[in-house]
């Protein structure tokens, strides 16, 4: 049987968290885990990369929490969805940034108490986020994002897709990453 591997599915759609113009020539999708140190590192590289591409890139974040390795990652992803549902996409991205910025503060920096605090800073009602976490209100949504990653060939976190194809290059090096995106933009 012939099998195509490393191809994004489903395509980016209205359900996704996206920053940048819908008609940008490059769509960069990250499958990430808020408790993954490599993802936090990517979070520090990405602003430089996205700034260089400007309006030519749309950045999409999908959840890929590795629950066996990172016990707080699933709740972190669910908290970001709760924030998005309550307070909108801008708040989602504030929450996303806050979790990565504080990830390494301490061992418990992504426990539920901290997540609720970041949610409040991001502009959501902390009590609602706490209730949503307790009720696993966004468990299915996060799980479905994770499975889309598995089916797309995500092979660890972070995994990036440039215009639908898994990026095998060095994302830790901003200039190599920029080159790959520039090439896709042409």
């Amino acid at each position: 049987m012939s099998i195509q591997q490393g191809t994004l599915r489903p395509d980016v759609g209205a359900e996704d968290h996206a920053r940048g113009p819908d008609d940008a020539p490059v769509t960069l999708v990250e499958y990430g885990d808020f408790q993954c140190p490599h993802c936090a590192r990517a979070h520090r590289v990405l602003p430089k990369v996205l700034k260089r591409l400007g309006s030519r890139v749309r950045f999409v974040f999908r959840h890929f929490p590795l629950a066996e390795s990172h016990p707080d990652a699933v709740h972190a992803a669910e908290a970001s969805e709760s924030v998005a549902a309550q307070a909108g996409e801008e708040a989602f991205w504030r929450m996303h940034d806050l979790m990565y910025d504080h990830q390494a503060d301490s061992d418990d920096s992504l426990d539920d108490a901290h997540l609720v605090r970041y949610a409040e800073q991001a502009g959501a009602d902390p009590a609602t986020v706490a209730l949503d976490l307790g009720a696993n209100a966004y468990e299915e949504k996060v799980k479905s994002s994770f499975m889309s990653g598995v089916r797309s060939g995500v092979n660890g976190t972070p995994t990036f897709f440039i215009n639908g194809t898994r990026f095998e290059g060095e994302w830790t090096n901003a200039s190599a990453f920029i080159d790959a995106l520039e090439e896709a933009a042409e």
Partner: protein
Amino acid sequence: MPDDSKMLKAGTPAPDFTLPVTPDQQITLSEFRGRPVILAFYPADWSPVCGDQLALYNEILSEFHKHHAELLAISVDGAWCHGAYASQRKLHFPLLADFEPKGEVARRYGIYRAHEGTAGRALFVIDAEGVIRWSYLSPAGVNPGADGILEALESLDAGAHAAGRGASA
């Protein structure tokens, strides 16, 4: 791309083997006849890419089990090394020791890397009758993910259903 010319391909009966899974337990491939088996050869315990690959499979074991498939991971590391690695990474599937004679099973599947002295990063999906239905050799530094495995398992399911309908008609 790596040289996969010697790798056993789809349609080949999977060579049977018996390998240690712990210092006093062994696993034989043919014991799993009747359901699919995924063989994941990888270069070494503790190397970072392998860690990610096995960690990923550990997260999605339930998806493999939906197809009644068994995952067996194989490297040339010894059973004691596997034991330490599996316990530290909390892996919930067997790691087989292709340790003595070193790499013998990897050689029979055509994916031994003699220069490095390790197995290549190769995947085999074997059907319920013990025939290889899909194989893939990844570049050593690239974690192949799980999309290929799941798609292969789905085609096996589809094939089995079609065969079942044929037999009953």
